[in-house]
């Protein structure tokens, strides 16, 4: 039966996290935007304690065993992530926890691997994990990965360079955390996609170095690292899934399936940033007694009213696409199409909504005295990372047309 109301349990999580976002994130958001590359350790440690004790936070829900929660785990995560990103997207991304790396382990790891690598997220000190896919020579084209993994006795030997690795510093530098990086590498370049496997590399593994953290337009509280692998040796059992190279690229599809779970989360993060801007504009209009007259004929509206309504409607459209994708995942349905729709729409909408919000506020919107301009900078990443706008449209197109990546590229 159609129902647009969040379950009380999720609504409670949302409200808790909203408090947290408002009181623990907003006050330091500007600081860690200006002081790029500095880490908000107090916030990090607080979040770590919180998620361990109260089960708050996106990482937490995964561990909770409580049935009712698990039945809506993905949706719950989306709601949580929207709130945290409403607080600050950069700080949200900087939060410790399994993140994309953990997601990959959960999706493709053996029970033993899950146990071995996920357990550290229950420790006392904050831990990060990250996923390293992009390379200087390959952006959206994951199949072109150059990083190699060669079998040598009981080890895999990794060589190559990874860039744009979110939280790569925190997950890969042992002085930061006892984390790990899930690295995509090819065991057989001639096999193309089929040859691509993912490997778990622990922080501090000799041969892996964090070479650089990027200076970015936004989400500056979160590090975006370059990782270099030089004869980096890891135990043979740190490959995710089978080492066999299948004839088809099914294996690769498996790896890609991770994104069906993470794209709605990425979309939810985008929504948080967009809603932050929308809420700000709404409050400002209220302060100036400028009404938004819903139900009034369009030709009677002011430019501000229509812009606001358009922002509101498109943001809600993106939110509902996101909730649907998460809801399907929770029901165990394939959501590859819907997840890409959510990500594509949310990325585009929040880019437009935040850009428009800055315009509506005029000089105030453009000033770094307010957070609006920051949200515009933070928002744009959602059009790009975890699958660009174009990549998501490509996935949607392939699915609705029933085309392979050969038939439509």
């Amino acid at each position: 039966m159609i129902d647009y109301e969040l379950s009380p349990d999720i609504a409670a999580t949302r409200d808790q996290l909203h408090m947290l976002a408002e009181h623990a994130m907003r006050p330091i958001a500007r600081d860690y935007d200006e002081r790029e590359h500095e880490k908000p350790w107090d916030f990090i440690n607080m979040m770590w304690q919180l998620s361990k004790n109260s089960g708050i936070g996106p990482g937490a829900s995964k561990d909770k065993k409580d049935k009712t929660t698990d039945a809506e785990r993905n949706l719950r995560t989306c709601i949580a992530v929207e709130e945290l990103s409403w607080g600050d997207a950069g700080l949200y991304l900087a939060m410790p926890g399994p993140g994309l790396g953990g997601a990959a382990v959960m999706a493709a790891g053996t029970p033993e691997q899950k146990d071995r690598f996920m357990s550290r997220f229950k420790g006392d000190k904050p831990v990060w994990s990250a996923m390293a896919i992009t390379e200087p020579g390959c952006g959206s084209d994951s199949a072109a990965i150059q990083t190699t993994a060669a079998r040598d006795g009981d080890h895999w030997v990794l060589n190559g360079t990874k860039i744009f690795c979110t939280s790569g510093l925190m997950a890969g530098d042992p002085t930061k955390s006892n984390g790990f990086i899930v690295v995509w590498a090819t065991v057989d370049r001639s096999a193309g996609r089929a040859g691509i496997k993912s490997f778990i590399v622990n922080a501090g593994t000799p041969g892996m170095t964090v070479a650089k953290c990027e200076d970015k337009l936004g989400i500056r509280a979160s590090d975006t690292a370059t990782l270099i692998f030089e004869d980096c040796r890891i135990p043979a059992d740190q490959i995710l899934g089978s080492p066999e190279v299948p004839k088809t690229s099914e294996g690769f599809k498996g790896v890609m399936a991770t994104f069906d779970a993470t794209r709605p989360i990425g979309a939810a993060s985008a929504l948080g940033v967009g809603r932050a801007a929308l809420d700000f504009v709404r409050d400002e209009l209220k302060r100036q007694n400028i009404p938004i007259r819903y139900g009034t004929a369009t030709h009677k509206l002011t430019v501000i009213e229509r812009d606001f309504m358009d922002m509101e409607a498109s943001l809600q459209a993106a939110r509902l696409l996101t909730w649907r994708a998460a809801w399907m995942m929770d029901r165990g349905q394939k959501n590859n199409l819907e997840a890409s729709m959510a990500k594509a729409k949310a990325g585009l909408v929040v880019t437009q909504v935040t850009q428009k919000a800055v315009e509506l506020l005029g000089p105030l919107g453009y000033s770094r005295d307010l957070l609006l301009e920051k949200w515009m900078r933070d928002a744009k990443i959602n059009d790009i990372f975890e699958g660009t706008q174009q990549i998501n449209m490509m996935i949607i197109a392939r699915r609705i047309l029933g085309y392979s990546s050969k038939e439509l590229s």
Partner: protein
Amino acid sequence: MINFELEEEQQLIRDTVVSFARDEVRPHAREADEKGHIPSDLVQKGWELGLVQSMIPEEFGGFGNAHSAITGAVVAEELAYGDLSIAMHLLAPRLVTVPLVAFGSPALKKAVLPRFSGERFEAASAAIMEPRMDFDAMAPASTLKRDGDDYLLDGEKCLVPLGNEARHFLVVASLANGTGEAHPQALVVDRETPGLTVGERERNMGLKALATTRVSFDRCKIPREHLLGDAAAVTRLSNLWRVAQASMAVGVARAAYDYAREYAKERRAFGQAIAQKQAIAFMLAEMAMEVDAMRLLTWEAAWRLDRQEDATREAHLAKRYAADMALKVTDNALQVLGGHGYIRDHMVELFLRNARSFAMLEGLAIA
């Protein structure tokens, strides 16, 4: 708890309407548009789906099902997927029955509702729109004035569906209260009322199969029991229109998207299907995405209405969004077909003409 799945009964209704739209409605769509006429046997077949009778109380001969805006949205989308004009024709009786069941006086219900419980299609209509650029459904130029125990209705309406057949019209007019302020008031008007004149059949860019007329009211005497509730009633009714029209926009957009997608997979150029070109493929992807987005927004408004909550914001935003996207999607669908899209051998130009109506439509269908 979040759930985007229709309940079983709603799915059954949808399945029925889906096949009716596919097997009966769509095959007639083009000819109905060209001739400006919908075959009466098709209308009768549609009547027999029971979409009107279903929510008329049993005491008045109906099935007595509870009214559901979501069910109404589903039906509206699927019928409009078949053809917008035919959908509006088939659902026109609801323009009177739904408001009556919700807000009608016992006497009026008793007098009118039984007419819609029969075997044969019974036309009804709504006279909401007005022939003016600055039309605002919530502040119509048509006026209702107190006259003793009765009221006097004056004004001119346009885009009145089945104006020539309908016995009863739902009308919204501005009712001046004591303080000189006016609020929109809904009422039911009998076509036999002296002073009511039904004009010529209208000629529009789209909706050509739907027989719309102008209707003018010249000091029409309206008994007080013909009034439906107060301003709040108009608010709820207008939100029900918006949901129905937004749903029809989804249906038309989806029809265009499906048509363009299948064409693009068949049509070959430069040695491959044109759908294999990014420019075309991404257009189709956007259409698919927006069709879903339109529906999700519309159902949210419908869901609120079914909870008896105020849904003005949601319904207004959903209707605006759906209207804009329906135009964009149908226009892109025509673009995908290129020259063939401009030819009336294909359906997309019809979808575009019909889709252009949504931005201005008020009160031509009700969920």
